């Protein structure tokens, strides 16, 4: 068995990453399901994201919150999974187990509008809405500036809103 000698800060980080996992796993899988449209792939992506976070925790420099950094690892894993699944997959196609059997027409409009968003807009919107992250954490997770997060989120919401407005 391989014995890893860890420094005290690394031990502390491991405990903190575990705590982040336990506190956020539902939200992370929700975001992953929204992006990937496949519950099993979403499960694997989140687990793999945490494997990376644990393995590369020594790379955490404290430039952002640890939670934001871990979200970044998870988002990278989700995006890689998304690329691996390929273009044949149409995200936002699946019906969620907890969803309504006959969704309101309004939901279909929102679903179509979400598909038309750019990938970044979708990610920002999902992280804000489903994970309740603040702008700095979203920026850390996606590797973009905080100001860009605000602008992207504004544009994404405006696009979905206008789709609904046209429908109403």
């Amino acid at each position: 068995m391989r014995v890893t000698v860890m420094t005290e800060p690394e031990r502390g980080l491991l405990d903190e990453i575990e705590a982040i996992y336990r506190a956020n796993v539902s939200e992370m899988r929700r975001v992953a399901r929204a992006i990937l449209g496949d519950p099993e792939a979403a499960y694997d992506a989140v687990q793999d994201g945490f494997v990376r976070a644990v393995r590369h925790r020594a790379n955490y420099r404290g430039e952002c919150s640890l939670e934001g950094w871990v979200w970044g690892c998870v988002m990278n894993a989700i995006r890689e999974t998304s690329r691996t699944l390929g273009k044949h997959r149409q995200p936002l196609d699946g019906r969620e187990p907890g969803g309504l059997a006959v969704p309101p027409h309004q939901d279909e409009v929102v679903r179509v509008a979400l598909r038309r968003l750019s990938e970044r807009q979708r990610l920002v919107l999902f992280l804000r809405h489903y994970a309740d992250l603040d702008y700095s954490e979203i920026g850390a997770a996606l590797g973009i500036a905080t100001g860009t997060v605000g602008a992207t989120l504004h544009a994404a919401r405006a696009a979905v809103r206008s789709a609904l407005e046209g429908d109403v």
Partner: protein
Amino acid sequence: MNHLDDLVDESLDRLFPLQPEQGDWQDILTRLQTSPEAVPFIPTVRRRRFRWLLAPIAVLAAAAAALLISAPWRDGPSVIAKASAAISAGSPTDVLHEQAQMTLLVRRCPTSGPVILHCRKLRKPLRLPIESIALWVEGGTGHRSFRAIQRVHTPHRPNAKIEIPAGPFGNATATSTAQTQVVEIGGHLGPTHVADALVYQRYRNTLLRFTQKPTSISADAFDPIALVRHALATGQARVAGTAMLHGRPVRAITVQLHNLDAGSGTATYYVDPTTYAPVEIVFHHAPNLRFPYTPIFDPSVPIDIQVRFSTFRRMPATPATQALTDIRAQHKSAKIVCAVEFGLPDC
């Protein structure tokens, strides 16, 4: 935010509803050990000139495999057997000494019951260290002497109400520190339940005699590892793999609990990979699991109980070590009094 924004939010909630899920941290640790990045890349070197050696090597390998299969030493003790042996109750010539810290891991804000946290969402599991346990008990499984010291911490959280219930022997004895109470108890354990007990009252220097019907207090009430011991001995455990826990390598064993008092549930038991000594037990959301002085939660609130061991050792029974299991030997000047409030006969 206008009306359309509300509609967007409602649709987003319906499209992907939040499904409360249990994480599987053990799976991450297993993936960490087995994923390709963890395995060093060893380039293969093709050496065709030694190809003629393949046939003799194959013959030798087959012979070795046959020898291994038929060899008597192949039935070496399994991980479960070693773990079980490491925490066995021992013999009457042993004295077991255990020390552990118990922490509650609360995953959702309880809003009713003896524990109320005024929060809407916990971003991290709330860790509530509630008690530390020190136990000295004679070995074996029959009638044996024991002494336990429990330091019960009343978790102080702002905007929270946390009530520590009275233990099986009444309220914990208050000491000078308001947040910590100490209960020292000793007596005899029967095969399954506490046979008789004395509770030390520090402020009066008395030993309060306490007896109940033998079925009321489990012998395991002061010994979390006893639950695991039963499960390992009865085949209700399986090896889950290796892991890193608090910076040290451990072996993980999944344990199915079927206990008279604890009901059913699961636990993950971590042991040292070399000595198989206990490192930690995490009881996963076992609403029926009750330890003395553990706050009682709403059963629907997911809570894990983490027991981290700092000491687990088996000492030879000598007058000195046996005195550690004897509460009367520890408090020779204390007068034994009857617990009148329990309606007992005269001492």
